[in-house]
């Protein structure tokens, strides 16, 4: 009997039942609970020290202000008021929203197109192309920005010469008008392969017999793709939209590196993260920078929560 008791106690529900009748909870179960704590403690210590504490400290600091005369004092939500009223900060937010609104649909369209081709096997060498497309994911963003910076350089970049050869003189990919579109091209290069592989894996899990039945009914291929395949990977697509939105909000490295090729275009407030960096590190107004970071974190957490809510609602409906 003692044997079967032990096995039952392993399952979560049984454990919960044991917990309800506390006195009956065996010394054994308590000892096992302690082992669980031993396993998670190393992670929790590092997690607390290097994530929870810094975030809590930043929130705390964002409630103080330092003045030239009078030193540091509690100022409540004064920093938040100035962030919320800051035109340049919201200008940066709008810029990354525009960036995402163009980059994400274009990239997902390309990624879906190729994922479908690979899944159907209607192009030769799918395996080879899949490997090639994934390569940019392994390239640090600093290095991809450097490489594209060379290609787009206003003085000697090959793409600039190409435009000159086409008759566009004084064409500058990194001018203030074209900087955002250029970064969109770079971001598409960086992320299409990753999104494509995820969509490909999702498409692969569509049951084969559904497609076979459609073929037997003489359904044309484009209908199979649009009516059967793509609706079944919609959850994956929606999830990718949200992941990419969160990524777009954090745009930092590409503009920072491209700034070295064409100084002056990227301002200190060009994106929210650049704004946070220049406010708290370059200008030393770290309390204001902390408030900006909290505001941006709230925006990003809101996007994440929306994605979870969206997914759960769909699950209930389905």
């Amino acid at each position, binding site marked *: 009997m003692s044997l079967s008791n032990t096995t039952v106690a392993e399952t979560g529900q049984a454990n919960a039942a044991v917990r309800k009748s506390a006195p009956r909870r065996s010394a054994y179960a308590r000892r096992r609970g302690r082992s669980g704590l031993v396993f998670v403690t190393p992670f929790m210590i590092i997690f607390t020290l290097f994530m929870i504490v810094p975030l809590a400290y930043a929130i705390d600091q964002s409630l103080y202000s330092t003045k030239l005369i009078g030193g540091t004092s509690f100022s409540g939500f004064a920093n938040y008021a100035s962030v919320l009223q800051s035109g340049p900060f919201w200008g940066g937010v709008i810029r990354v929203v525009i960036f995402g609104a163009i980059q994400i649909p274009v990239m997902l369209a390309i990624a879906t197109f190729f994922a479908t081709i690979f899944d159907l096997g209607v192009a030769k060498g799918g395996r080879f192309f899949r490997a090639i497309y994934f390569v940019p994911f392994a390239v640090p*963003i600093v290095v991809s920005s450097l490489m*594209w910076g060379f290609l787009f350089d206003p003085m000697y970049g090959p793409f600039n010469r190409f435009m000159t050869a086409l008759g566009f003189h004084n064409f500058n990919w990194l001018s203030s008008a074209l900087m955002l579109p250029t970064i969109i091209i770079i971001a598409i290069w960086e992320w299409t392969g990753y999104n494509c592989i995820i969509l490909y894996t999702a498409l692969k899990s569509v049951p084969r017999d559904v497609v076979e039945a459609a073929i037997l009914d003489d359904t044309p291929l484009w209908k199979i793709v649009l009516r059967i395949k793509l609706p079944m990977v919609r959850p994956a697509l929606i999830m990718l939209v949200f992941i990419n939105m969160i990524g777009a909000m954090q745009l930092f490295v590409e503009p920072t590196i491209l700034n070295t090729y064409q100084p002056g275009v990227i301002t200190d407030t060009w994106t929210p993260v650049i704004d946070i960096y220049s406010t708290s590190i370059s200008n030393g107004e770290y309390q204001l920078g902390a408030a900006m970071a909290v505001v941006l974190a709230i925006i990003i957490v809101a996007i994440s929560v929306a994605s979870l809510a969206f997914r759960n609602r769909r699950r209930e409906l389905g």
Partner: protein
Amino acid sequence: MNESRRLERLAERDAVIPVELYGLKRGTVTVLTACCVLFAVFTLIPLAWVIINSTKTQANIFQSFGFWFASPFEFFHTFANLFRDVDGDGTYSNWFLNTVLYAAVGGGGATVLSALGGYGFARYRFTGSQLLFGAVIAGLLVPVTLVAVPLYLVYAKVHLINSIWGMILPSMVSPIGLYLMRTYVTLSIPRELTDAARIDGAGELRIFFKIALPLMVPGLMTVLLLSVVATWNNYILPLIIFSNNNLYPATVGLGLWSQHATTSGDANLYPLLVLGGLVTIIPMIALFALLSRYWRSGLLLGSVAN
């Protein structure tokens, strides 16, 4: 090719419906393959440019045709310069070794902590376990970019600015890694197996190391790969917390060079920037090629978790 690999490929071929059955017009496959080639060219253009131009002098990088070689062949000269401090900013080889150190210890540590923690949350219920796991899930939502400035503020207080631990320890925090490992343990280690060992009188740690850990290897490789890549590519955290150039990882060193390249004059930084970029990429591409078996499944798991 070994047997399991061969069977895997056969199974994959079987799962694909033969193209002839779709009743496509003639030439469709050719057109679609051409599309694939076009996008492959787009993907490879920057890499080709970097490989070709890593062999050139600074003057030739500016003046010669970008997509073909030009003499003199300067590759070895530039490569030797990667081991020298050419303009007082620092030495690339030093930055590269820093990157290796941070990625190996940070990524390795993240994997160990995630494995222990994921197993703990998957297999044990204890007072507060749900609360702690909830905190980890909340940590998933916090973007790493936004933790950098708060970390800097704390480091300024506790004197961790310009300390390698200030870079390595936060790299060990991987909520996504823990989540992946917990999912992996739940899905792929049968409870009967650990229970049987327990009945035989094995201790909890012994069960973990002797039974669970060997079965967790594929999941561990995924977490290792993702956390090594994340640390290798990290830019904003080391940029903020290091003011001593000798501690820079390759990403921050290259960023500094790109700022100074136009003004460095005699130092000829452009060839170094091109070759340094190339050298920074190669280990990551090799790692992905080597572990390609693992990342496919891991990516999907990871993206679902996000």
